[in-house]
């Protein structure tokens, strides 16, 4: 169920590399299942510099408010503004339409700190 072309963090974020050395970031289906219906999301501003595994935003569901951590360092170049009015996209399409933000200037060395789909499958099984 977890796409093979993505990398995963233990905090249940995914990252998808783009051809121009930028990357899309979102949260996994496992995360959205645990959270329940998402009702609000707060993302870092475009232009802000973020550091791997740092808290960069908040996600609120009918159950609880949780922190969003970034799986990689870089600079935010785009937010998925669709999510502001339609946070349910995160539940309905966590790996596609529910992407949260796009970063540039990423350091591919940091990817070694993340898991591939098989490793992540194993993590959420436990």
């Amino acid at each position, binding site marked *: 169920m977890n796409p093979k072309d993505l990398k995963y963090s233990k905090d249940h974020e995914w990252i998808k590399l783009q051809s121009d050395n930028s990357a899309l970031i979102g949260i996994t289906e496992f995360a959205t299942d645990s959270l329940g219906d998402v009702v609000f999301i707060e993302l870092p501003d475009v232009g802000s510099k973020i550091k791997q595994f740092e808290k960069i935003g908040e996600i609120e569901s*009918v*159950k*609880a408010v949780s922190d969003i951590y970034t799986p990689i360092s870089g600079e935010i170049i785009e937010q998925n503004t669709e999510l502001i009015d339609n946070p349910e996209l995160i539940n309905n399409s966590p790996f596609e339409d529910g992407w949260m933000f796009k970063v540039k200037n990423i350091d591919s060395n940091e990817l070694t700190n993340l898991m591939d789909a098989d490793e992540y499958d194993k993590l959420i099984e436990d």
Partner: protein
Amino acid sequence: MNIEINNIDRKLLMDRSSPGRIGATLPPLDVPKQKLPPNNYLRDNIDLPELSESELVRYFSKLSQFNFSIDHNFYPLGSCTMKYNPKINDEIASMKGLSNLHPLQDESTIQGALKLMFELQESLCEITGMDNISLAPMAGADGELAGMLMTKAYHLSNKNPQRKKILIPDSAHGTNPASAAMAGFEVITLPSDPKGNADIEALKSSVDETLAGLMITLPSTLGLFDTNILDVCKIVHNAGGIVYGDGANLNSLLGRVKLGELGFDIIHSNLHKTFTQPHGGGGPGAGPVIIKKFLSDYLPSPIVKYNQKTNYYSLYSPINTIGKMGAFHGNFGALVRAYSYIKTLGGSGINQISQNAVINANYIRTQLKDYFTLPFDRTCMHEVVLSAKDYKQKYNISALDIAKRLIDYGIHPPTMYFPLIIDEALLIEPTETESKDTLDYFIEVMKTISKEAKDNPELLHNAPHNTPNTRVDEALAARNPNLRWTSSNI
């Protein structure tokens, strides 16, 4: 809860309005007519409902029947201590000498009220094993904030501005990190060990010269007494930090454990929970902050002192006070009820609170452990956390579905999805005021729901069925809140 409701009952007050209908007939004007203020101060487009007195009374009476309260039904809302509030407390609080006081009255005219506050101060220090107290904070989180501001003031006056870090176990109340952050601290989350205690090794590696203190709830929100607590206090003290205790769960310790003797430096007590005050929906409460002597100078004001020689009670403000937490003297009505509760129970009665609270929760734990997952299979204190994760996996029945179904049986849902570290958590606090019959009924209902989850999951997915409103779409309500009446004519 079966309450008959028809379409008229569902109409909001504004939709019941009929132009020109009034609730009262005014007598003819018998004083000179005054000029109205200029037009730019007045508006004539205010939507006010036009109803007769009887229509208005029926509307609100009907609404009041929809209420769920501890005076109607069992209310096992974990962590909130929704126990029965003795009516004598209300009787005392509404005595004219107490309820008609004005906060700006001269001290000499309110000696009785001050004496009550002074004796409550003394009682709470005695019960908790602490030295000094301020009754000023208006609620639990306000007490936490007061405690954190005092922690900050203490470190600053000791020339330790680098002490900015507050450690908080992951089983803490959500208000703890919020209060620490509001006071300007950096919050570090401390993991729990497999037994549900604070992780000692993680604590050891987190303390250094930047440590301001630790906020810990005892018993924790998992309903567990942290058996490492003496070590926890020692490690924090050795690192120069303050140990803050969230006293929200004090009902399980009353008369048996004094937090002061365990090593706590600051605690707050939720008087509205532990010492009874009708609460819920955000108030009203009282959260006195209770401390060790070395912090006395920082207490929020005012505090009541007593001069034995002149037999006179007066208010004072400590020398380095963090200031006021609100207007005047705190939530006086809540203080009166707490005083009344403590005095009517006395020492032996206070002992019995903790005994009943703990026995009741453990009775539920042992009766339901074969039906629901018990994340920590050990003796609990005043509340027990169950997990519905097996139901979620096997039958797609969530903690929410179980909670909603309880409403059909006339039981208030327990706290759900909290503590956050437990999947599909149901946090159940039966409280000390429930009889064995009530507990047995609850246990039977939980067993019935467990069977329904397997045999008829749809029944739970759509619950509640017997209420004026059935399952509401909470996600839709949160995403598109519709909070204000608007005229359909606009």
